[in-house]
């Protein structure tokens, strides 16, 4: 180094710099208290998280794979390549349903986004408020409501039959068409949300520049708008494809047996675990490939509007005919969007067994609800669901928050892998998660403390934990990204230990996001069906399984009454989350001040 020439500025130079990186040799306890600054601290925090993810996500997946290649593994996998086999037909059906779902959801979702974000017409605000309602229903009750509405015995085809006096129900949906209706209604939000976010983030001056340069409306669409929407549409397509592949309740209710998820269920209930594992492995691998593809694509997507610009403008519909048309469309859309919830609510008050060939049930009663709450046997599923979901949620919060912190704030080898492991739990279909847990815990292993978990109570909250951990993780991680890391450093500087700084500052500021994620996990747990149906026992049946059983014994009214409880819980949580969202916004503004 250069030292100033004046003698007074010459600095004492110590001859012995000491062995690199090891001056002073602190005691172990000092190191422990050293917290986040010491190089090994991240590993101490991360180790239990890694063990949890390994033990309950990755290792069960491997267990399923080993189960599948066991006795007649080659034969099982070969069946996917034989032209006339069920396996191959199921794979093809699943892929075709998924591709068709992407197409339908894309058309509906993007059209809705453009209509609602680019045009102003009567009824727009109402539709915007309820547009996510069908997708918010729990998977089983959602599918049931569509079955009650649009299947051969459904309200709409029978209503039209009566109206036109035809011999057969009009426009009934069954089989694959029925599955596609459910998928379109419940999955188009992936397209709607990403397309409207992209439209909102798009600088309108880019579009104006194209018009200014002489492009017509069609040309602007083709050359400017669609290319700028491409990243959002690709992400949404991948999501819809994955979700469709994982879909289980729609094929179950519309009787499409030859899909991957249905085959997993059928083989499992027939006792052929190796074959179920083979289906689960194939489905798992496809899902993981989609996850990796999505991460890769999102990593490289590049279009982003540079300027913040003015808010996107809405075109007012002025033509009177157009206005009446738009009004009519809005009324119809509102009816269609609210029909599933309305149907469940209506049927929940119908007397069991009273609804046979009528368009809508003929006898109404409050007995269904009375039965649920007064008959101990009928109330048990509700207790089960609440209890199991609560346990899972507590686990999700403890583990999800720490993983979010580790991934966002700490540097350690394998950080990316930790992130992928959580998202793996998200990418795996519920049926696959269930099969994985069955494969891993039908004998005791280290992660179940040597106990067999299958057939016990604990397998259920464990499955919910694995399925909904990513919800808490993502919500926590998003909030954490808004919090300036120097806040925690300031607390440390003022004398707080890592734990105290984390507790009084970081975690405290993360709270709205953590809570929103926890509520989401809880309500998903209460609505869970897909994994539960494969692993429940008589004493641990949750609400959704009970709904399914009641449907089979033609107690449709009671089934709908249970469903109504799930729906009410979801809407309460949505309102609370909305409140948290505004809370989060204010803390974001606070954070913006300090930036």
């Amino acid at each position, binding site marked *: 180094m250069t030292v100033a*020439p004046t003698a007074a500025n010459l600095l004492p130079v110590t001859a012995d*710099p000491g062995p690199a990186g090891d*001056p002073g040799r602190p005691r172990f306890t000092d190191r422990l208290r050293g917290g986040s600054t010491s190089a090994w601290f991240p590993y101490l925090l991360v180790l239990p998280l890694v063990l949890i993810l390994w033990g309950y996500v990755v290792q069960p997946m491997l267990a399923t794979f080993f189960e599948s290649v066991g006795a007649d593994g080659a034969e099982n996998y070969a069946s996917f390549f034989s032209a006339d086999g069920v396996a191959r037909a199921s794979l093809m059906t699943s892929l075709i349903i998924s591709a068709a779902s992407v197409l339908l959801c894309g058309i509906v979702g993007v059209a809705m986004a453009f209509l609602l974000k680019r045009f102003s017409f009567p009824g727009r605000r109402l539709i915007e408020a309820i547009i996510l309602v069908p997708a918010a229903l729990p998977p089983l009750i959602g599918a049931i409501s569509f079955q009650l509405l649009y299947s051969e015995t459904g309200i709409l085809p029978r209503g039209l039959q009566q109206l036109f006096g035809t011999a057969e129900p009009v426009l009934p949906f069954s089989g694959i068409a029925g599955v596609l209706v459910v998928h379109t209604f419940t999955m188009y939000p992936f397209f709607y949300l990403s397309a409207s976010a992209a439209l909102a983030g798009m600088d309108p001056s880019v579009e104006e520049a194209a018009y200014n340069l002489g492009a017509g409306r069609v040309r602007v669409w083709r050359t400017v708008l669609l290319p700028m929407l491409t990243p959002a549409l690709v992400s949404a397509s991948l999501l819809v494809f994955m979700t469709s592949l994982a879909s289980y309740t729609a094929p179950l209710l519309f009787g499409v047996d030859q899909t991957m998820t249905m085959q997993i269920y059928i083989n499992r209930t027939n006792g052929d675990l190796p074959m179920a594992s083979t289906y689960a492995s194939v489905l798992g691998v496809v899902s993981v490939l989609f996850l990796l593809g999505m991460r890769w694509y999102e990593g490289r997507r590049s279009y982003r509007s540079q300027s913040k610009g003015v808010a996107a403008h809405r075109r007012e519909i002025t033509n009177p005919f157009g206005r009446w048309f738009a009004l009519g469309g809005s009324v119809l859309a509102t009816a269609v969007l609210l029909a599933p919830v309305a149907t469940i609510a209506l049927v929940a008050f119908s007397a069991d067994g009273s609804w046979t060939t009528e368009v809508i049930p003929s006898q109404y009663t409050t007995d269904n609800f009375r039965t649920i709450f007064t008959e101990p046997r009928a109330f048990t599923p509700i207790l089960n669901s609440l209890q199991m979901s609560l346990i899972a949620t507590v686990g999700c919060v403890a583990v999800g928050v720490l993983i979010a912190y580790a991934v966002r704030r700490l540097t350690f080898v394998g950080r990316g892998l930790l992130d992928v492991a959580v998202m793996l739990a998200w990418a795996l279909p519920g049926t696959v998660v269930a099969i994985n847990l069955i494969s891993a815990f039908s004998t005791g292993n280290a992660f179940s403390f040597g106990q067999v978990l299958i057939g016990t109570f604990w397998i259920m909250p464990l499955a919910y934990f694995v399925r909904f951990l990513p919800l808490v993780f993502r919500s926590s991680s998003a909030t954490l990204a808004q919090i300036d890391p120097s*806040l925690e450093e*300031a607390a440390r500087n003022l004398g707080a230990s890592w734990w105290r700084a984390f507790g009084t500052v970081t975690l405290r500021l993360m709270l709205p996001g953590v809570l929103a994620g926890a509520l989401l996990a809880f309500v998903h747990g209460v609505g869970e069906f897909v994994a539960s149906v494969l692993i429940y026992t008589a004493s641990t049946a949750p609400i959704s399984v009970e709904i399914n059983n009641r449907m089979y014994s033609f107690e449709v009214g009671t089934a709908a009454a249970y469903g109504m409880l799930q729906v009410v819980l979801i809407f309460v949580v949505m309102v609370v989350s909305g409140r948290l969202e505004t809370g989060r916004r204010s803390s974001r503004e606070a954070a913006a001040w300090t930036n």
Partner: protein
Amino acid sequence: MIDVTLESVSKRFARTGDTAAVDDVDITIGAGEFFTLLGPSGCGKTTTLRMVAGFYFPTSGRIRFGSEDVTRRPPNKRDTGMVFQNYALFPHMSVAQNVAYGLKIRKVRRDESRRRVAEALEQVHLDGYGNRRIDELSGGQQQRVALARALVIRPRTLLLDEPLSNLDAKLREETRVEIRRIQREAGITSIYVTHDQAEAMAMSDRIAVMESGRVQQIGTPQEIYHRPANTFVARFIGRSNVLTLPVVGATADTVTVTLPGGGQTTVAAPADHGLAVGGAALVSIRPEHIGLGVATEPGALSARVTELEFTGMATHLTVDLAGEEVMVAAVDVPDGLTVGDQIGLRLPAHRMWVVRP
């Protein structure tokens, strides 16, 4: 009051591989001194400060507070008060709760804590703001809360990481006077990080100029300005002409050089300049130290004006002096002087100084 010593401190980050963010830095900061780390962004000044605070541990070297080795001590055990660039005020706490945070951790009794918080807020002219929320304060007020929060714990050293960079120009000047006043009153050893050389000059007892992870020079503002150690310091601090001139004579602490356009002059040089007759010396002279006169004046060097910029207080000229481009800043220039005119320059020997490359 306590002195702070950095002995051969280096920091290498795993992700940047071999290049050191901080490379073999030796600094001794006297008790009660206001010491500034000055340099362009990426020079390692903030990394150095964060090692003193304990947010990074050095790859090698030692850091001492007085005689205590704190090299590997966690940040919460160091008793430093830090003011962050973005203030890092806790948005979920009131002003008073922010200031009291450190006292709470130190288990200071409730009534004493209340008294000290009130005192600290008074010191930064925020009395009565205790119950405000952080987002109700202006940037300047937030900055002062951050200062009060750091000072109220009576830390052994005060660390300031570009605390003025988010304030507008006028407020920045007021605040730097204020920070200096409070620091003097508290008599607290302070380390200040900035990239703004005017701020460093105005506030510091001593400055360490850093570049590429290394200390280029340590000295008082006057020393740094008048006796820059090398061309980097000469050009980073203010504006400077660095002329390459042939050496015609050398002693232990002077060098005699030939000036462009004729004449010789003897200028001061650092003790170990290592220059000999026949070599070339780098001689720095500030634009404002060059005298302006008429071209025919005896002893003046004749130069031609190539650029002229009137800024109000001074006129900035670029002149061609025998093929060398020289910057001149003059308070008073002859009326009607324009580009292309011949003028005379006087280069005072006592304002010239030999710098290293």
